[in-house]
Every structure is written in C-alpha cells, then in structure tokens.
C-alpha cells in the first residue's frame, strides 16, 4: 500500500488535510476575493452576521467586514506559523547537528545555551522580545522561533549521536571529507525525519503564540490577525459575541487541521519505515 493511500484511509488525517487545504485556499484567495485593505470601513458598525449578504459575517466595532478580515487573517496566521516553524527547525537542526557531531566543548556550550533557552517559558520569551523590539511581523516570527528551536535541537542532537557512529560516517572520514561536509551532507539528512515529525506541533504552537501575542496587543497593528480580532471583540463580548467567536473558531480549526494532518503524515511514514 502506498503511503498516500494509507494517508487517505485515516479519517483524522483526511479531516486535517481538508481543513489545512481550506485554510491555504483562504490565505491564497484573500486578495482575489477581498481586494484592497481588509481594515477599510465597509458598512455600519456592529452589524450582526447573516443580515446583509454583502457582509455575510457582519462588521466589527468600526464597521470593517469580518469575513474579509478572517480571510486576510488566515494569511497572517499561516505565514507566521510556517515562517516561525521553519526558522525554529533550521536553527534547531543546525545547532543539534553541530553539537552532536562535534562533541566535547562545542557540544557542552551549545547544549548549555539550549538549556538556558529552555528554562525560560517560550511565551514569556516571545512577550519580552516583542515588547523590547516593537511589534512587526518579522519580529513576531523571530520571537516565536526563539522559544521553539530548542526542541528540534535536542532531537537532532540525539539522532546525530547515534548516526555518527555508523560505518558510512567512518567511511566518509577515511576518504578525507571535511568534518562540516560530513555533518551536513551525510549526517543531517538522515537525522531529519524525527525532527521534521515535530513540525506540525511547532506550526500549531506558533499559530497559537502569534494569536496570543496579537490578543495582548503585541501583534503587527497594520495587519489583520485572528488574535487581534478576538481582542478587539472582547470589549463587546456581551453584546456582539460573534466578533470573538468567529475568529476563535477559525483558530481552533486551523490548529486542529495542522495537527491532524501532521500526525497523519508522521504515522503513514512511520508505518512505512516500520515495514521496510
């Protein structure tokens, strides 16, 4: 059975993939369906959903189209989630490989730095970083990556420690390859699968952290974010709860989709490896 088939037979994985596909479609179509600034004032303020079909999800406190904000918010969430996870995985993999392969003092120093980062709660670290540097999309990505690269670093190091004792690594040494070349060409690619398996969790966590930062007013104020929408709606929670509920549901479905799809991929590939 091919991995794709196996993937398609797992209902959770299919659900996840569908949610993820919907999210990506939203993010990609945002500019086509809702051209112009999603924060532009489009109608009367606090219009409830399903009243006016030109504004199907109603408007917020200033009269901005909630559906347009939702679509453009998908873009921000996905962009931040993917960018932060990619940054965390790259940094983590590089640090882990260097530490594991070099050993000795380099390993000690790198791992103690990792420990130091791990002892600080990652959300607190992101919060502090954004408050000091000032909120913008790039800063938020770096802030989230700062707190999440340690997990991939530890997993990569553990993998590398076992791989570096393999015969083909010894072979590469014998033919005189540069140690860095061995580390990144021979060892790292083989250490990657377990590291990549963490990516779904990291992306989901990054999306949530971004939402939490925006909720606290530390997101990029010039972009629509779901966390920002929830925070904005909180002031009118009793009178217009849909303003918080709609982006809240979007956030839940996104995180769920990313997680389920990621799990599905990991499981199907794990089974394949187990069989072979």
């Amino acid at each position, binding site marked *: 059975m091919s991995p794709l088939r196996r993937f398609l037979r797992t209902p959770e994985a299919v659900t996840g993939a569908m949610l993820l596909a919907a999210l990506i479609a939203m993010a990609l179509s945002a500019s086509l369906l809702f051209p112009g600034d999603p924060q532009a004032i489009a109608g009367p303020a606090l219009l409830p959903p399903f009243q006016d079909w030109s504004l199907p999800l109603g408007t917020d406190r200033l009269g901005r189209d909630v559906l347009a904000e939702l679509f453009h918010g998908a873009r921000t969430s996905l962009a931040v989630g993917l960018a932060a996870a990619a940054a965390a995985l790259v940094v983590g993999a590089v640090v882990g490989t260097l530490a594991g392969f070099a050993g000795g003092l380099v390993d000690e120093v790198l791992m103690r730095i990792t420990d130091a980062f791990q002892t600080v709660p990652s959300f607190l670290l992101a919060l502090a970083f954004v408050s000091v540097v000032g909120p913008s999309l790039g800063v938020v990505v770096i802030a989230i990556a700062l707190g999440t690269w340690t997990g991939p670093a530890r997993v990569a190091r553990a993998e590398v420690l076992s791989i570096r004792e393999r015969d083909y690594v010894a072979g590469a040494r014998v033919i005189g390859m540069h140690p860095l070349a061995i580390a990144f060409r021979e060892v790292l690619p083989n250490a990657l699968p377990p590291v990549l398996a963490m990516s779904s969790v990291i992306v989901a966590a990054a999306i949530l952290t971004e939402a939490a930062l925006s909720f606290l007013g530390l997101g990029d104020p010039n972009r629509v974010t779901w966390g920002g929408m929830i925070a904005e709606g909180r002031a009118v929670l009793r*009178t217009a709860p849909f303003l918080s509920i709609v982006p809240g549901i979007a956030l839940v479905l996104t995180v769920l989709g990313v997680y389920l799809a990621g799990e599905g991929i990991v499981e199907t590939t794990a089974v394949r490896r187990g069989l072979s």
Partner: protein
Amino acid sequence: MSGFTISRRTMLAGSAMLLASTAMPAPGWAQTPKRGGRLVLAADSEPRNLNPAIVASNGVFFISSKIVETLAEASFDGKDGLAPRLALSWEGAADGLSVTFKLRDGVKWHDGKPFTSADVAFSALQIWKPLQNLGRTVFKDLASVDTPDDLTAVFKFAKPTPFQLIRNALPALSSVVPKHIYEVGKIEDNPANNAPIGTGPFKFGEYKAGQYYRLTKNADYWGKDEPYLDEIIYQVLPDRTSAASALEAEEIQLAAFSAVPLADLDRISKVPGLKVISKGYEGLTYQLVVEINHRRKELADVKVRQAIAHAIDKDFVVKTVFLGYAATATGPVPKNDPQFYTADVPTYAFDVAKANALLDEAGYVRGADDNRFSLKLLPAPYFNETKQFGDYLRQALAAIGIDAQLVNNDSAAHIKAVYTDHAFDLAVGPPVFRGDPAISTTILVQSGIPDGVPFSNQGGYKNDALDALIAKASETLDTSARTDLYKEFQKEVATDLPLINVAEWSFISVARDTVGNIANNPRWAVSNWADTYLES
C-alpha cells in the same frame, strides 16, 4: 424635584454630551439620605502615590479626594462655578498681586490637630508651586503666603496673576496637606503620601495591593451630619469587562470613570436595579486630539494639516467610536466650557475631495502605489477609544492617499516616544481640559517647552503670534479681556492647526439604584462624597 436646578452649564452639558436620557431612570431626588453602610466600587488603577497635592491627576483624586480636601470644589450652581470647602471665601486684589482666602473654622486633621492657615501656606509654597505637576505653571509667580491669623491666608504674587485663573484652578490644584506631618524630612518620601492624612469626610484605612483600598468614616468631619457612609471600599478590578458583571452580581454598587465599556451601556441600562449616569464629569472633559510632528516637512505645511482635518469624519467618530457619548470638537476649548468656549472659529467639514485637492495643491501627488507619502501614527494606549480612533484615522488617511503605519506602545513607551524622543509623525492623545486654558491647554501649542514634558507641545510647532497671545493672556487681569484673548487663541489654533481637535468626551458612571446623591457636582467622581449615601 428639589435639588434639580437647570443651569446654563447643565443645559450645555446635556445638549453636548447627548445624554442617554431614555436610559436614565429618575434618580431619587426627594429621598432623605440614610446613614451608614459600605459603598463598594470598582477601581481600575492602583496609584502608589496618593498625595493629590503632588500628583494632581484624576486617578489619584478618585481615591484621595475623599481624604484630602481642596480649598474649593466645582459646583453646578455656585458663584463662578465653585462651592466652598476648606476656604469660605476668596478675594483677588485689583492689581493681581494678591488673593485672600478666609478659611473654615473648627476643622481638624484626621490625627486631631487643628487645621490652620499655616497648613495652606506650607502646601502652597512647599508643594503646589515646586512639586505639583499642574501647580508648577499656575503658581509659578507665587512669592509668599501671609498668615495674619489662623483663618486667613493671603497669597502674594511676584507678577500680576489673573484671579480668574487662580479661581478656576482651585478644584484640582489646591489640595491642602498637614504641615506638621510634612515639615520633617523630604516631602516626596513622606509615608503620608501612601497613607494620606487630611481633613476630608473619610480617613485612609488600608491598602492591599491588587485587592482593595479601604476608607473609613471621619466622625469629626466639619460637615454637619456628614459623611453618611461608614466605609468606602475600592475593589481593584483592572479588567474592564469585569466591572459590568460585578455590578450585575451586586458585588459592587458603583463603577465610575467608564469602568463599564461604552458598548455595554445599552445592555446594562436595561438591567433592573442599575442606572447609567452621564452627569457629574462636566469639569473633567477629555479631548481627542491628533498631535502633529511639525518637524516632518509635509506636516509643516498648513495645507496638509487642513487636508487631514477635512479627511476626519468627526460625526462618525462620535457615533461609532464613542457610541454617541461624546461631542464633536471645533477647537482647543471644549463646547461644554461655560467661560471660554467660542464657536466662532474656522471649521473643517468632512470632505475627502477637498482634502485630496488641498494635498494636490501642496504638491504631494499620488505615486504609483496611490500613496502620496507615508507617516508613523502612534495612538495613545490609555483608552480603548484612543486606540480605536487610531484604527479609524489610518483608514481616513488612506482615503486621501496618506499611508499611515500604526505603532503600538505601552503607556511608558508611548510617553517616551512622543514627548521625549519625538519619534512620531502623528499621535492620538487625550489631553484634559481643566476649566481654564492656562492650566493644561496652552502648553499643547506653546513653543519653548523642554523635551520630556508629557502632554505638551513636543511637535516642534512654533508660532510667534500664538506665543505672544498666550503670554498676553497669562498677564491680563481683567476677566472679560482675558476671556476674549482665549477666544482669539481658539481661533488662531483652529486656523493654523498646530493640532487637530476631533472630539471631546467624558465619563459615564453605572450605579445601583440604592446609591444616592450621585453626580451632584461637575467633578463628582473626584469630589469628597460627604453627602453620598446608600439606601438600605
């Protein structure tokens, strides 16, 4: 209907503030006050320094005005809008060089010592003039205070000082603290700053950080039969959404200073047993202002500033951001001010086409991306409404081809960015009008103010004519001549637009029906509450 007198002031306030009159149940005017009881109310900030003589701000007054009293308090129907407190009368000399206060007899400090003119002299010379945020300007020429007897204090000024200014400053700036407590040691470090001792109807009880402030009844208070309440508890509720639920659950009986968000008022006014009151803040008007950094060459051009003024739909701001609980502004003095306001100033109607034409005329044409130029916009974080207006302003500027990038900061970082580092192009600020333009309004446009003074002209604006006008008004003694100068001042500001006044608003109280004598003076939330009572 005893006690309900229609004055010009209440009429003005009523029409300007668009009272939610249908939502206001008739307060129990005819009832006789009951004695006893504990009033529990919401407090949203926890000031550490509670000395109102040093920190003259509403957050401090909210708590300490019940403990430490001023010479006079604002009043709806008193002469010159004042009612006596520690002073019974005040008289200004014709040459503007002295003001004589006759003080109340038989007043005791909370520690039992008598209150005398020496306390007034000490507070004025040692605290208001050198240390107080607002007193530094108003009392800058105060040279000495003579005390011919225990109940007379004569303020002597080195330069003629308008009596109108001193009078208007009394409610906010004249908190009297005891000399015998403050004369030892450094005033700023005195323990009484955190546990104030005053003459007021309530004594300071205790403060538990993050929980509550407790004030207890002063049995020796000078007011006959006052105070009515036994205790006041300020329950610390920093989350603005929790005040409404606390009121509904009867955990608190009062939420002042708009602790209940405006968006919730409509709903809460329908809850039986609760009343929404928009009176009692007429003397505490906040102004929604677009501060402008004139160092930016585009913004130094008056045509660009006029274009921005034309791009703002003030009615939309009042209706949508303030949900009607505000009034549109025409200039630097709010419409509800009975002494100085003039409507005879240039106005800027909402007109996007005209704004675009003005920008074209100024030579800033739209580029390939449809933008003329880019600006940094810093909305002050203190109020929900200032932040929301920032979002609106960004959209309003986009309509005229100005790309505004929002920068969000916390309070401390905002004050530093705008008033010290000048790292802004436009900022949204909420300055307070305190009954006289000379107290805290003229410094918003006056030149020559050192860097770092918050809520002052830090936009690099300099207009010699306006500076001369401000200087002349500050030494004009005749009340009507001085008032006319300030009318001219409003005209000049509205013409040259050193800043853009958008709206003026004040606060809303929500209380249970059982709380009596609410909102009976224009600074009610920060007055002494000697006559506030609870029906059982």
